[in-house]
């Protein structure tokens, strides 16, 4: 695994720069939820880590700008950006039309996908968990898959992250047949899944994968197809205020360079053990 030197340097420069922030260049702060590893998590020292953090520091290093990461609960993450609590959101946030009405997005820095998990003891037929369904292109076979999801999950309690796209998707596809429970953080949803207060949940695939491998996660299994497109949009991007176009341009340029030289791919492999870096522009 290649650990780019750039990150180590940027972390070091970040720490060195902290006491002397009075420099002429702008210092920006980046918000992340810190409760959805491997995208972003919080370690036992209270430090934020994960793919979002590494990509963010890498981009800041390339732009030659000082960056700090701050934690912010998910359901306030866009309002707080809008009022200026921080300058950028990097928190596994999907680029969607609805969010684009409020904030600007960089080009994608990952193309994730989502999946249901359900508690094992329910004994539900998971179907083909490797099937890929793009909700932007729903044909006959996709319709059949969704219909099967609806009938199997009917009457179950499904947990989601409050104000996430998964919440919107569950509402759209299953809202009339399941009970939706919205949580402050995915960590709390996982606790309740382990405890059995919810029968299943919908969220990012990689978050679930880490969870299912952990001790408390043995109670649940993946269920149904890998989902993307639709309300999830083209991928995961960094969110900024719309009037901050200078920063957006710089971010996009740095992201483009980091994607082309394989840095983003390396970080993806480091955190997700698979390549979900955005497709290179042809």
């Amino acid at each position: 695994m290649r650990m780019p030197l750039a990150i180590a340097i940027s972390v070091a420069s970040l720490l060195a720069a902290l006491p002397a922030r009075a420099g002429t260049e702008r210092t920006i702060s980046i918000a992340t939820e810190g409760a959805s590893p491997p995208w972003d998590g919080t370690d036992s020292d209270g430090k934020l880590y994960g793919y979002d953090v590494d990509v963010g520091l890498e981009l800041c290093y390339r732009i030659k700008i000082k960056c700090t990461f701050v934690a912010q609960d998910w359901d306030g993450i866009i309002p707080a950006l809008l009022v200026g609590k921080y300058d950028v959101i990097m928190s596994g946030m999907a680029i969607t039309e609805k969010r684009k009405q409020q904030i600007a997005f960089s080009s994608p820095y990952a193309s994730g996908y989502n999946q249901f998990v359900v508690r094992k003891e329910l004994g539900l037929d998971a179907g083909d968990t490797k099937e890929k369904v793009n909700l932007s292109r729903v044909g006959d076979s996709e319709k059949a898959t969704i219909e099967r999801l609806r009938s199997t999950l009917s009457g179950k309690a499904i947990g989601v992250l409050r104000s996430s796209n998964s919440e919107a998707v569950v509402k759209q596809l299953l809202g009339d047949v399941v009970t939706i429970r919205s949580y402050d953080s995915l960590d709390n949803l996982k606790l309740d899944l382990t405890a059995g207060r919810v029968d299943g949940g919908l969220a990012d695939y990689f978050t679930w994968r880490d969870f299912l491998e952990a001790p408390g996660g043995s109670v649940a299994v993946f269920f149904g197809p890998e989902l993307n497109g639709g309300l999830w949009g083209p991928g995961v991007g960094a969110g900024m205020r719309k009037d901050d176009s200078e920063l957006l341009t710089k971010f996009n340029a740095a992201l483009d360079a980091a994607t082309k030289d394989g840095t983003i791919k390396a970080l993806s492999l480091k955190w997700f053990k698979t390549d979900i870096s955005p497709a290179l522009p042809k």
Partner: protein
Amino acid sequence: MNFGLMFDALRVLPSGIGLTLTLTVLSLTAGFLLSVPLAFARAFGRPSVSYAVLAYTYVIRGTPMLVQLFLLYYGLSQIDAVRASVFWVILKDPLWCALFTFSLNSAAHTTEILCRGLQSVPTGIIEAAKALGLKRLQIARLVTFPIAFRISLPAYGNEVVGMIKGSSLASTVTLLELTGMARQMVSATFAPYEVFIVAGAIYLALTTLAVKATQFLERRLSNENTPKQRRKARLRPTLPDHEITTLVP
């Protein structure tokens, strides 16, 4: 400030009032029923009993209700024995968890409020009741408690207001009461300011109603006026400077 959004909020949020009131009324009722025997035990019981009750009220009143709720909701569900027990049927449901936490809280507060009321009942009255040949339970039911309740009413009014406000914590365990509805609406509109102001106004209306209701009850039960004056007092507007003593732990 977006007034259109505030109108939307005014249309959407009232659907959460039902749950807010359910949580408040049920918790207050359970808390009150629980607190009456506890208050007697705390005021007149043997020292060991009195201290046991004090320990309960002390711990509950000394820790934030949010911590208690999370401890009960997330903490207890971590223990396998709890999940295997019959209590899980109740603890599994976030509504019951919230009700349970709120009731325990309300009981602790009300116990201390009533206890102080019981202790300030003049001993002469109790002695007079004894002299009339009333039994202990009769004295408690007919003499001590009614007087103590009247003394405690202003402080209990604060407990009612506190419970209405405290029920907003239920939103942290996925319940969609008033605050839960507001937070959900914020997540859809990204407009915290407008939505929370409307939510605050609704709470203010609810708590004002509660304050007026207790003031009305106070005047009804007040024995300083003749029945005729009391009837008149009902029609008079409420006193603007009516004293509200603070939440008494």
